[in-house]
């Protein structure tokens, strides 16, 4: 199991999957336009409404930057770490609305706002499980950040670190 996790190509898959997820989620929200992202944030009732215009661009913006970094493979360890923290924050946000009894669309990939109560528990469970999976992928990359086809490998031709894997 550990061998499989450490496999550099498993790392590559983690890195690219996370990149696609972050770019899709960040892009959808960033370019949604109008007030959609602000409304999605307001629906959580976590931050004061006056923060929403800023957060509505800042959160997806951060996701896009992290997604690009993971896509090209630059600063992989720190980007994965920030991604793990961000996703943990999203999970906390979903748990918090669940506990407080609101029924909202998480707005994870655009959309958002209040929705009907139907299927609420299943919806929240799915969202949390999905985000947990993303946290897992990110942690895998924090532990073993070296993957093939990463831009940062250009600066690391020699295998000076004991944990590094042979890279073609």
């Amino acid at each position: 199991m550990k061998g499989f996790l450490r496999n550099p190509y498993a790392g590559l898959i983690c890195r690219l999957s996370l990149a696609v997820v972050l770019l899709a989620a960040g892009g959808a929200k960033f370019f949604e336009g109008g007030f959609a992202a602000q409304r999605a944030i307001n629906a959580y009732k976590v931050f004061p409404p006056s923060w929403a215009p800023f957060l509505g661009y800042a959160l997806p913006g951060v996701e896009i930057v992290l997604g690009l970094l993971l896509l090209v493979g630059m600063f992989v360890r720190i980007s994965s770490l920030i991604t793990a923290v961000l996703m943990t924050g999203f999970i906390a946000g979903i748990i918090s609305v669940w506990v407080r009894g609101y029924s909202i669309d998480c707005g994870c990939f655009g959309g958002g706002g209040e929705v009907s109560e139907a299927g609420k528990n299943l919806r929240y469970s799915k969202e949390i499980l999905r985000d947990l999976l993303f946290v897992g992928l990110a942690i895998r990359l924090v532990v073993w950040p070296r993957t093939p086809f990463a831009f940062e490998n250009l600066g690391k031709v020699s295998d000076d670190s004991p944990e590094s894997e042979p890279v073609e």
Partner: protein
Amino acid sequence: MATNNQGSRAAREAAAAARAAAKSEQKNRERKIQIIGGAAVLLVVAVLVAIGVHAASKNAGGVDSKAALPAGVTSDTYGVKVGSAWSATNADSIPKLELWEDFQCPACKNLEDSSGAVISGLSKAGKLRVEYRPTIFLDANLQGENTSNGNPDSSLESTMAFGCAVDSGKAAQFHTIVFANQPAEGKGYSFNTLSGFAQSAGISGTELTKFNDCLSSKKYNGWVQNSYAKFNAAGITSTPTGILNGKTVDNNVLYDPKALTKAIQAATK
């Protein structure tokens, strides 16, 4: 064992120096890549900030200060104030009920069906200052369905029509008729439907021509967007939301005509 001769020591030292040189070259290389990466990140951040600032300023508070406003609407709230209580000499002591609604929102129809009569009754009797605060957030949610039914942006269209009806002095009537005839969610409102509502509200003759021109020219698009911006700035995420004298009314009270009447009486100073 420890019988090193000069030759092998020199070789070792040379090898160590070569390793150190390789290592420092390696460090330089790594730094170079990090600088390139860092510069690229800064560039991307700068582009995103520029796009964000541009988009945010485009709907900065959403407010187009030059937007035409329906009769009696002011730019502090962009709400539609109905009833004689607003112009009473003791207006400040009469309770104020603000209602955030989207004409496509089924829950708003439910509210109108249950408590609408009480609200308009108190308003007509001059005992309640009612302010309708339009929002159009459902347009984004219903875009697909609205469009496939041939009525895109139905919340916007119906709210613009509301503004035109305000000019004809039929705000309350038009408001009631829209909710009474609200179609299934997603079907939306066509121009002819809205014009029909205007006639049912008692708009006829030259007033009706004016109404139709007003609606087809999208005269109140800016006003609706401004009101929608207020909705977002207030952080309200669902409709209907009733605000009595500045305090959000619990939905259990809002939908219950008796409880609502009591709450309004209690708010009367």
